[in-house]
């Protein structure tokens, strides 16, 4: 090392080996290069629409046959649960005992059940209860679960302890046992007790996922950066953490929708879910199960409809997960 430093000298020496100083003249300045191709080095010109995670996922979904099939099925199910008379002209609760157990005839393609009701009409009308329960329960679970999990994950500390233990308590209740206990004391012919019960027991599943996703998202540098630039807690949570944590919640909720529909049928089968005069696949399956040997058609149509519906939602959830998780591509 020489005796005295000339600052200019050192500066030059320090920079030159790493090339920052000299190479500047050589390389055309980045700005200049970009001026000629404003889209950037990747060739994504301004005319191409900007792609976010969601537009990207949508691109991916549109080409996925599983998504197309399942969403068409679900669309169909939603349409017939809103307007069942489009494809079934009869009244599901007008039954003629004289026709009990009759098999298919013209105009009544699925035959009649033990009460002499038209199985086709009841199967079509049954979609309404299943879809309504599934969607309401999922919405409730997703909202309550992500709220609780989001707060627990974002604030941490004793908030986290309290909310997570609360979730554990509800997580520990067995669904069927809990249903038999809670729902057997409620007398109502609406879907709300069943929906409420599912939300009560279902939110911890989403809450755990939301908590994990929020903890991961809040450690990102951009959350710190937002804080350094003066964002408030609520702004950070809503603008920076939530959008980056919501994908896993959506995936799990979509898959869970199918299982809630199956759970509704299970509870109705056990006699604690929906009750007549509500038309439900679960009730019909329950009634038909005792005649399965002699009149299998009474069981197979509602059971088949239930299976296809559950399958459609699970397939949709799978497709959404594939689209939202770039690592699986």
């Amino acid at each position, binding site marked *: 090392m020489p005796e005295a430093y000339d600052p200019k000298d050192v500066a030059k020496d320090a920079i030159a080996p790493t090339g920052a100083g000299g190479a500047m003249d050589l390389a055309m300045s980045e*700005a200049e290069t970009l001026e000629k191709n404003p889209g*950037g080095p990747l060739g994504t010109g301004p005319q191409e629409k900007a792609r976010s995670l969601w537009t990207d996922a949508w691109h991916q979904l549109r080409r996925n046959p599983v998504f197309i099939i399942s969403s068409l099925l679900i669309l169909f199910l939603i349409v017939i649960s809103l307007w069942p008379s489009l494809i079934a002209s009869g009244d599901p609760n007008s039954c003629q005992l004289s026709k009990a157990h009759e098999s298919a005839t013209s105009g009544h393609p699925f035959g009649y059940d033990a009460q002499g009701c038209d199985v086709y009409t009841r199967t079509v009308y049954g979609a309404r209860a299943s879809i309504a329960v599934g969607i309401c329960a999922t919405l409730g679970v997703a909202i309550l679960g992500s709220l609780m999990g989001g707060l627990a994950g974002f604030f941490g500390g004793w908030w986290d302890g309290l909310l997570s233990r609360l979730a554990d308590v509800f997580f520990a209740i067995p669904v069927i046992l809990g249903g038999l206990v809670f729902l057997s004391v409620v007398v109502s012919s609406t879907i709300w007790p069943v929906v409420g019960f599912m939300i009560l027991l279902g939110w911890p599943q989403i809450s755990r996922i939301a908590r994990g996703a929020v903890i991961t998202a809040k450690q990102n540098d951009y959350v710190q950066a*937002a804080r350094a630039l003066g964002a408030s807690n609520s702004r950070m949570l809503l603008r920076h953490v939530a959008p980056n944590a919501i994908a896993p919640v959506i995936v799990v909720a979509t898959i869970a929708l199918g299982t809630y529909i199956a759970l509704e049928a299970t509870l109705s089968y056990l006699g604690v879910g929906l009750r007549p005069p509500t038309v439900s696949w679960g009730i019909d399956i329950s009634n038909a199960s005792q005649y399965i040997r002699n009149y299998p058609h009474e069981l197979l149509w509602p059971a088949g409809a239930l299976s296809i519906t559950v399958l459609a939602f699970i397939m949709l959830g799978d497709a959404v997960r594939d689209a939202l998780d770039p690592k699986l591509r």
Partner: protein
Amino acid sequence: MLLEVRDLQVEFRTRDGVAKAVNGVTYEVDAGETLAVLGESGSGKSVTAQAIMGILDMPPGKITGGEILFQGKDLLKMKEDERRKVRGAEMAMIFQDALSSLNPVLSVGDQLGEMFIVHRGMSKKDARAKSIELMDRVRIPAAKERVSQYPHQFSGGMRQRIMIAMALALEPALIIADEPTTALDVTVQAQVMDLLAELQRELNMGLILITHDLGVVADVADKIAVMYAGRIVERAPVHDIYKAPAHPYTKGLLESIPRLDQKGQELYAIKGLPPNLMAIPPGCAFNPRCPRAQDVCRTDVPPLAQVSEDRQSACHFWKETLRDA
């Protein structure tokens, strides 16, 4: 004085013990001035910056002493609400890695515009126009078209320009740049640094430049603070330090720069590792690695001695070090 940090002390209380990250740091920055804070990883330079910004994770971090005077007011005595209004508007920070510091699901226009919406209560439309203006200002070509693009669609240099634009959006009085060019390749480094220096001059901002790149420092800094184990070991105007360091650690840092006139020779390196912050050696923290260490260095913490009017060194033997340089 724009910013005065006085005897700041920060520690992290972890399960394994207390890590003393900052042990009495004092420095000041004036408007239009650039202070470079040098030091190895773990020397406490970033923690000091986080404490100034008020974005230190507490717990585990805890400010145990000192004061941070910003425009005469002690930031540490302010309520969180008041501090939040200072952040972004009065002082802003530029982070090392612009890719991870920008939210991937929001377009850059949304993120730039947020500054105006949060702090100035502007409408979305006005904020958009301001964002485009800012992008022009940091020389991002075709700003109008690119304002609605997402961070991953920009190159590294362009992303760092956006970070700079965000930090400068409200024309703060103080900017802290935490290794702003480390994640960039060398040609882009120089451009980004030039841009930052130019904007600083234009807006007459105080700039704290945290770096370990001595080349960058020589170009843009007015004065230097060298940190070691959470302490300032030397403070001086930039020319004085390059001419003759007054601390063996500074000397070691300068000697470990590759130089063209030493081609073929082995590059100097400071022996050993930085100390564990949970067990900082008694006396001078640098003594196990110091070629000049004597018995007194192992027992007595050297005070920050006044070398000249605007220069200090925390070495028992600063006179000898200065003479030998």
